[in-house]
């Protein structure tokens, strides 16, 4: 079994780094889970379509990314991939290939991807200015985002029928 934990974002663009920072701190705070042989950790700045490569040969995945949905900064979103496009219409944005768009394309081309449970932990961003570091609200949300990662990974690890999880929620 292989579970991918993927932090996504740009390290020099303010709160956009929230996904990368969460995965980094989760590794520090939950070293035992992070060191499990089933767990494969990736920090990926702007993966775009390469996200599909990161999901190849995995049995489950937890993606951690900053989101902007006009909610309170620092708010956590825990979603399945079907819920993602509802608030992130990436195809009309200019950010290349976002997570929602990439997963949609991947599932269209490869129905097997539908069978992989994917959980997305989104952290509501306040600002994505160049080089500005995490905002206070987002920084304060990182510990609960780490707990959410831990919870999702453990759920995948402990549930023999983990393929039933995730995408239908």
């Amino acid at each position, binding site marked *: 079994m292989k579970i991918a934990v993927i932090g996504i974002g*740009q*390290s*020099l663009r303010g709160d956009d780094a929230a996904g990368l920072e969460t995965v980094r701190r989760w590794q520090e705070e939950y070293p035992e889970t992070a060191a499990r042989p089933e767990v494969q950790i990736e920090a*990926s*700045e*702007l*993966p*775009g*379509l*390469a996200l*599909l*490569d990161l999901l190849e040969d995995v049995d489950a995945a937890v993606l951690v990314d900053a989101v902007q949905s006009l909610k309170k900064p620092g708010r956590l979103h825990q979603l399945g991939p079907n819920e993602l496009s509802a608030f992130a219409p990436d*195809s*009309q*944005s*200019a*950010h*290349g*290939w976002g997570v929602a768009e990439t997963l*949609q*394309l991947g599932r*269209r*081309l490869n129905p097997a991807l539908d069978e992989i449970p994917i959980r997305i932990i989104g952290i509501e961003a306040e600002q994505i*200015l*160049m*080089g500005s570091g995490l905002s206070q609200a987002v920084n304060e949300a990182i510990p609960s985002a780490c707990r959410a990662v831990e919870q999702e990974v453990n759920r995948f690890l402990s549930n023999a029928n983990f393929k039933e999880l995730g995408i239908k929620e």
Partner: protein
Amino acid sequence: MKNIEVPALARVEGEGGLFIGLKNGKAVEIRLDIYEPPRFFEGFLRNRFLQEVPDITARICGICPVAYQMSSAFALENALGIKVGHQARALRRLMYCGEYIESHALHIYMLQAPDLLGKQSAFEVAAIAPDVVKNALRLKKIGNQILKAIGGRSIHPVNVCVGGFYSWPQAASLTALLPELEWGLQASIDCVKWAVTLPFPELEIDYEFVALHHPDEYGVIEGEVWSSKGRKLSVQDYETAYIEEHIEHSNALHGRTVDGNTYLVGPLARLNLNHAQLLPIAQKSLKDSKIKLPLRNPYKSLIARAIELVQFFEEAIQLVKAYKPDGPAHLELKLKAGNGAAATEAPRGLLYHRYQIDGNGLIEFAKITPPTAQNLPRIEADLFALAPKIVSMSHADATLTAEHLVRAYDPCISCATHFLKLKVEEIEK
């Protein structure tokens, strides 16, 4: 007809807006708007140690990190008066092969092909021709695998340093790529055959093409800066002929020649100026395609990209087969104050860096001129040239035709501004 306005351009890297103001059936105003703090990185690099620079500049662009980190590495090596050895140089070229393969496969199939096939997006292309999109993703992945094998990571490679590489990659991890590279070579030959059949809009522009030229290889990492108007300069003299200026509506600087002309960098410029240096299989693909050079239709830069795909697969295979790491992967650095410039060809065109360092190796000054900033005035001028053709179209078709033109440039708005927004609008009569 109404003004054309596209608040956010889809399928463009970064964020851009295009505005075309129409009056009495004529375009009177065209603005390509850029919404990103433009020179952030140049300031951000100041007072950093030179060895941090390649890692930071790699983050300017998620699509062409290699070009950004490599231009900075070469420029800083020039400032220190050192030159990397043969194998390190070859390995750097192999990294460019990976970056071009990835970037061109993405642009050809996922970004521009939908326009030529009358589809809204790659999703629609995937619905009618899933194998085309699957092949595109496979091509793109090969590029990614090259970068991962050498760079340590597929996005923002971390193995490149001033003086060479932190460590030599394993030969086995490179030779393992050969079967996929051979497949990719054939797929890219087929891509050229397919590309010439696409229904490109008619538009011929008398460009001044500017690209890096090297007498012994397809110009990518070293050489002179050549212009189709006959200007030939060393990279050190680049700034004497090519300048950047602030434009009111744009956060990005716009490039001009010292004579005040616009110029074009990118695949068309490279192919037109450097086709004699293509490797034999790429040369044959060009000949078989029966296209006549110079190519002057901006939409047909897709064909130039396809021929370059052949070139970079062919070259990657040669470089992997010839790979023989020997001695230390990087040179010892002896710090000294200095000034160094370098230009390399990013997939989108010539990318120029210049740095001034002090005796401790700290950055005192950084200048980064991305390809899209150089092309921005040219894109606007092309839109003016296109305007008479689109005023008789429906608003939707006109918008699409204008957007397609901008997308054909593959503007990396994140590097130009390093972000752009495209918008087309209409002024009341």
